């Protein structure tokens, strides 16, 4: 199916899932030393055909470096990169079947929107007519036909972003790479554009790797998320699992909010120990009346977050943060706080969740 057919088809393109499908991207043993420091450390990553995967991690963990090696702008010191089972690590960026959307969009300011989007096709020596058709189709897809003849500097940031996306899509890449595609947009637009990107990605069934440091963004658009830390992938799972079953202490603290307490949990109480327990604020329940396994607690601070409140609770064994919706308690209120769920980490790795040993 060509891009134009895909754009016009209404049903989402069939997508093979999990191990059975062919591999869109397969990275093995990727290694890179820059300025005497190991930036990427023996990294493995497999993206299934048609899957959208986010590379999520704190600043400086090597996300951009990884993406640039996959795109072909940076040569890895070691490792293999395969796109649809074809080794590409020896190829230059211009010969790879991937297309990239740059963080600053990197539109050519001296070309109009059509020229920008048509340039990759012009390089492929396609006929004028065909270029025109394909450019129009992809501009219609990103809803930009009315800006065909504008210069990039004359359109808004969100529109520039869509031009950059169109320029990547028009190449019908086997692999779409995006480096923090939403970081230059304001909060409202970011939500809209990420939904647009996801929708287009689903419609075209295109294998996609997105770099981001925004966990909400990664959670909302990805099939799977690879959490990266210090040049390594810490965990690679579905968004929900990442939150409920973080494999390492790093992932648990990086994703969402966490009460991190040194010790272990015995009958709902924290006792000193070598382990680390992590409790999600929503798993801490504050009530005015005593209940089973709740312990007396005093409200120390209440921080409003719009639709919910963050409550700092002091118990005799630990200080806990809890989330509360509805009418919040006031500082100084006395009540009872219960821990309903907890993660236990030993040497940084998850050993139990809830009260169930792994």
């Amino acid at each position, binding site marked *: 199916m060509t891009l134009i057919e895909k754009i016009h088809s209404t049903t989402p393109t069939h997508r093979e899932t999990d191990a059975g499908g062919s591999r869109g991207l397969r990275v093995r043993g990727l290694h890179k030393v820059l300025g005497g420091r190991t930036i990427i450390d023996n990294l493995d990553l497999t993206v299934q055909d048609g899957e959208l995967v986010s590379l999520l991690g704190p600043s400086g963990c090597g996300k951009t470096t990884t993406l640039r090696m996959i795109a072909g702008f940076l040569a890895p010191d070691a490792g293999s990169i395969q796109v649809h089972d074809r080794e590409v690590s020896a190829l230059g960026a211009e010969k790879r079947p991937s*297309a*990239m959307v*740059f963080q600053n969009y990197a539109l*050519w*300011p001296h070309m109009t929107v059509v020229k920008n989007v048509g*340039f990759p096709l012009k390089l492929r020596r396609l006929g004028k007519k065909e270029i025109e058709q394909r450019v129009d189709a992809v501009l219609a897809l990103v809803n930009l036909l009315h800006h065909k003849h504008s210069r990039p500097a004359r359109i808004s940031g969100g529109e520039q972003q869509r031009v950059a996306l169109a320029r990547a899509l028009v190449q019908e890449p086997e692999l779409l790479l995006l480096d923090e595609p939403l970081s230059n947009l304001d909060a409202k637009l970011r939500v809209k554009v990420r939904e647009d990107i996801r929708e287009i990605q689903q419609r075209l069934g295109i294998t996609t790797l997105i770099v981001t440091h925004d966990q909400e963004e990664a959670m909302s658009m990805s099939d799977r998320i690879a959490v990266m830390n210090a040049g390594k992938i810490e965990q690679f799972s579905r968004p929900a699992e990442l939150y409920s079953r973080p494999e390492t202490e790093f992932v648990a603290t990086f994703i969402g909010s966490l009460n991190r307490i040194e010790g272990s949990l015995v009958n709902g109480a924290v006792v000193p120990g070598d382990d680390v327990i992590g409790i999600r604020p929503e798993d801490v329940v504050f009530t005015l009346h005593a209940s089973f396994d709740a312990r007396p607690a005093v409200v120390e601070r209440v921080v409003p977050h719009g639709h919910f409140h963050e409550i700092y609770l002091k118990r005799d064994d630990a200080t806990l943060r809890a989330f509360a919706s509805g009418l919040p308690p006031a500082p100084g209120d006395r009540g009872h706080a219960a821990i309903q769920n907890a993660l236990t980490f030993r040497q940084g790795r998850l050993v139990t969740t809830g009260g169930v040993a792994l």
Partner: protein
Amino acid sequence: MTMITKRARKSAARLSFSGPLSGLFFVLMVVFILGPLAWLGIRAFAESWTFPNLGPDGWTLRWWSVVLGDETLGRAVQNSLALAALTVLVSACICLPAAYAFARYEFWGRRTFLIGLFALNAFPKMGLYVTIASLFYALNLMGTVMGVLIVHVLGTVVFMTWIPAAAFAAVPRSLEEAARDAGATKLRVFISVTFPLALPGILVAAVMSFLASFDEAQGTYLIGAPDIMTMPTQMYTLVLNYPNQVAAVFSILLAIPSVALLLAAHKHIVGGTLAEGFQIK
């Protein structure tokens, strides 16, 4: 951009530049820049104009006919134009690749070379030319087009290297990478992205080189005279033999190509891609 927004922007700029101090500044600018030009213009048509008088004693076209009637002048104009064009071409061929290398690659001696280029201009020109002349005697280059061309090109190397180097360096790498990602070879990236984006800077350098060559007198006289005479060197002869109104006429003639070139380049440099290009990272 539509005319309306352009005008709005202009008036906004005018508003922000008000105040008595900037007014005074503006008047001084006009006096210092336009004053000498006006004086030159009047002088070129003046019968005579001596000190206590506020204006010339009478008007005449005599000085123009003297200059335009001089048969060597035609040759000088031709020489000057051809030489300036050739200088820009040769200088561009030599300096633009160097400028690109300075902008894009880190290599041994890079800094030394860049500073050395400036040092070349820091020397008193005449001393440099005398040294060159003695070398050219040995090489039989005195009085040859080649010799004069070398002197002219030397005088433009700084412009043709520094300005384009800055222009190349200002082209964001991600724009080049995006082109490679789209499937362009390195050469194609240069032709389609790097060069067009650096073009305003290159044009500025070309115009400045053209004018520098057009204006060059000392070295040309030393190396080229009397066989190769350009407008500036011809001016020495004219000025020595005629009243100084002739110099005014000649100055105006000398200025025509410069002004024409600046006007032609103005549209490209100010209104063109340059202004737009730099709004994008």
